[in-house]
């Protein structure tokens, strides 16, 4: 296999709170714990997980908005995790970012022209006229009328604003796009428009995507590979069809079973009870163990490693290879009862 374009190696991000006036320093929030992911050219890797799983923190760490606590982010063979100043700006040419909220990521006092030309002037050193020409081409790429260059962000709907956010990210012709929940703030019909746009941009421009989302269906639609995160760790990783058709990790199973579907009004599948543990005080062993319907004593003693079970399908579970227990009704109620106690 060829070399990955972007390689995340042992990245951790801990947020430590300020020391209290009296008493000890509170334990740091372990937002991202030892993540290893490879992104190959032309890949679209989806990172899914629920709120608080560290997926957005990971995205921001990769692009350099926040520095990682430890670990390497290797772009084309060199570690970019601690770059600053000019070297960091050089990386911005190649790795760009699309924000979740299109309205708060566009400066209300700037015109679209100013927003789109900024990266071309600052990063590529283009003059204003050349930037103008390319800004018009960019607008065309994201299916917006070039006249809109004169407008301010508040004059656009959410979907249009997100198109501008995407255009801004594409302004320097980057190789890798990190997309942080780019469609979750949008209405369903607009979401489909943006997903369609992202797909056609990817094939037209040969982009590589790292796509963060909480929506499994969106990820399955857009991505070839998927990593499932929970409480700062990757639980399962592999091609989309393996993950979604034959999940090996109980958490992935629970996520899939939780999606309401009109075809199965009465779902008898496993449901998760209890809440996410405190990321400043993660449970011992497997992070999912207190809520897991398959957990045993072993799970709380040691943390299962992310092991490859063939064809790049990795899972961090001691029972990833064992068959699912039969999905009988008693299992469900039992699981709920047990975990409800633990979560209290």
């Amino acid at each position, binding site marked *: 296999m060829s070399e990955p374009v972007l390689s995340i190696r042992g990245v951790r991000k801990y947020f430590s709170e300020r020391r209290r006036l009296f008493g000890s320093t509170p334990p740091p929030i372990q937002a991202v714990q030892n993540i290893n992911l490879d992104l190959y050219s032309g890949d679209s890797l989806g990172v899914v997980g*629920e709120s608080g799983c560290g997926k957005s923190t990971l995205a921001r760490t990769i692009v350099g908005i926040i520095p990682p606590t430890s670990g390497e982010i290797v772009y084309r063979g060199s570690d970019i995790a601690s770059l600053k100043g000019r070297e960091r700006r050089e990386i911005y040419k190649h790795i760009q970012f699309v924000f979740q909220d299109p309205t708060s990521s566009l400066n209300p006092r700037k015109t679209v022209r100013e927003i789109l030309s900024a990266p071309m002037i600052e*990063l590529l050193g283009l003059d204003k006229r050349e930037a103008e020409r390319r800004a018009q081409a960019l607008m065309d790429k994201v299916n917006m009328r070039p006249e809109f260059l004169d407008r301010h962000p508040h004059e656009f709907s959410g979907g249009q604003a997100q198109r501008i956010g995407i255009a801004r990210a594409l302004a320097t012709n980057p190789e890798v796009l990190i997309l942080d929940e780019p469609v979750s703030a949008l209405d369903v019909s607009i979401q489909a428009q943006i997903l369609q746009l992202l797909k056609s941009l990817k094939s037209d421009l040969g982009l590589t995507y790292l796509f963060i989302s909480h929506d499994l269906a969106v990820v399955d639609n857009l991505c070839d590979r998927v990593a499932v995160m929970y409480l700062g760790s990757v639980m399962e990783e592999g091609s989309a069809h393996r993950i979604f058709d034959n999940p090996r990790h109980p958490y992935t199973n629970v996520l899939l079973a939780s999606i309401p579907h009109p075809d199965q009004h009465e779902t008898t599948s496993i449901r998760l009870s209890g809440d996410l543990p405190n990321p400043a005080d993660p449970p011992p062993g497997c992070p999912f163990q207190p809520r897991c319907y398959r957990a045993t004593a072993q799970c709380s003693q040691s943390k299962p490693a992310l092991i490859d079970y063939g064809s790049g399908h990795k899972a961090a579970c001691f029972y990833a290879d064992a068959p699912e227990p039969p999905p009988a009704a008693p299992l469900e109620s039992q699981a709920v009862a047990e975990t409800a106690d633990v979560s209290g």
Partner: protein
Amino acid sequence: MSGSVRPRFGAGLRRFFYNRLAVVGLGILIAIAAVSLLAPILPLAHPNITDLAMRIMPPGTEGHVLGTDQLGRDILSRLIWGTRISLAVGLSATAIAAIIGSLIGIVSAFYGGVIDNTLMRGIDMLMAFPYILLALAIVAVLGPGLFNALIAISVVNIPFFARNVRGATVSLVRLEYIDAARLSGKNNFKILFGELLPNVMPVIVITISTTVGWMILETAGLSFLGLGAQPPTPDLGSMLGDGRSVILTAPHVATLPGLVILVLVIGINLVGDGLRDVLDPYLRAGALVSPRPATEVDAKLLARKRAEKADDRRAGESEDGNRKTGAPGGAQSDGGDSGQPDGDAQSDGDGSGHSDGGAPHISELPLSVRNLRTWFWQRDAQIHAADDVSFDLPKGRALGIMGESGSGKSVTALSVLGLVPTPPGRIMDGSVAYYGEELVGAPLEKLRFYRGNRIAYIFQNPMTSLNPLFSVGEQIAEAVRRHQPVTGEEARAKAGELMDMVQIPDARRRINDYPHQLSGGMRQRIGIAIALANDPDVIIADEPTTALDVTIQAQILRLLEDLRERYGVSLVFISHDFGVVSAVCERIVVMYAGEIVESGSVEEIYRRPLHPYTRRLMACVPKVGSRGAEMDAIPGLPPALDRLPAGCRFADRCDMAIEACTSAPVPLEEHANGSPFGAREVRCIRAKEVTV
């Protein structure tokens, strides 16, 4: 660029001139500024030439319109030249304070940490002294004189700017567009002055407009004390000081400069208010109108309702007997403990179109909405938020309202109990009936009685609907006590029961928790417990799971389902997600641009959507397993609700639209006999052609 800035500027100007007092202030300022600017060419006596023969002349003396002071100097001339100096000093002091103060504020907010601490502690030290004392100390060190007074006043006012600007900047620094600018390659300098400063500018301007008047007063104060303008230079403050010694014999010498100061400062403050209105519309005087306790009902509709009610009462007396037999106990809820206000139940006023044979009478329905029309009235637009919305909800059933943002689903839900804020909301037409009891135009006490009691709401974001200052137990107990005559202890016990009912583990301990101590899912359970507090007949849940994670959403959906089955509550469930609606509802109405476009059972709509919008909306929702499939997105955007097309509102995005679609409004028509309650309806002239 100018093309897009001009309309905003024009709008601002219009808003400024809308404020009459600000225009008066602006007039005063322009007049004063013009006169003082023209001082050198006006035919005035020299302000400093003394003429002891003409000492203390009263106003009206020949050659001295406003008289003279104790050295025989012309007061008019000194006033004009003095105003010139006072204005110049006040404005330059403001400019210096604004520039230095804003710079400190913006830099300390942007960098934070040590820089912030150092700068702001310095500012705190400046603020620890009474400002006049500080100014006196500075002048004492530098020596008296106008220039030194100017420096003193600038220094004294720097903290105002620093603090205001820092406060405004701190909230902006964390916004994503700052990150985006950094990713665009901008350095800190460009981010500070190119991205942040334009957004902080309104705050700076507002602070200037509120402090410039003060600065002029302070300049006058220092001069009055003899520390500012030195004789013979005239300045409003020193003139006031000079006049003080003759205040008993010649009051005009002190009064006239005093009046000029007064008028000048009033003018500045009026203009400042006007500017603030333009730049910060939320603070506008009179803009902070609290919404009315119930949505306004259009006057014509209200009059018609009253007339109908009177008619019904007359007709009802004769009809009363046979209706009682037709619907035994229909008007009474099962709870029985509610003690509804005396039942002036009225019959179905508008004789709705499709009440075929087996349909229950309106007096048996916990909720019946007919032709509801709620609009938002804005200064120059009427937003048709909900138009002609009708649905029935029988006891114990669940109805879903599905639609995207702006479809009118929430407005419909809030209109039921008059919870749409007025202004701008107004119910224009239609009726909402609870067991036959009309709620549109009902008196406020009646609406209050129903709110949270017979009809309860669950909102999308439990964090904003719960009060952060009270424990969740107190808030549930409060909901109980609002409608039930129980003691505090009983209410608390009931709160515990309710928390058990919504399956909050370890409810007894959690009862004292505050909302922020609970997770999103737990908070939503509290929201549900509050909705259940008075055993309501109807629960209206507005996107109750949208803010939650998918695993938590599954828990909440199941809880709602359980509660509905166990307690026979009727449910209106609003969501944009067909999957979620289908998990709890039997019947769905689909809304688009304020109208119902389709209704029917979950299965029917899922298997055979009749309206092109429903069909295409469901087609463009990605599903797990639909790997890489091309999504057929709906092109374009929904229409603006204040400029709706004459015909079908979906026509311009529809691939089935023909000419007839755009010429006239399309009615919602019955397509087939429906199930499980209500007909299968669709608002499309080509619905009959659908054969999927």
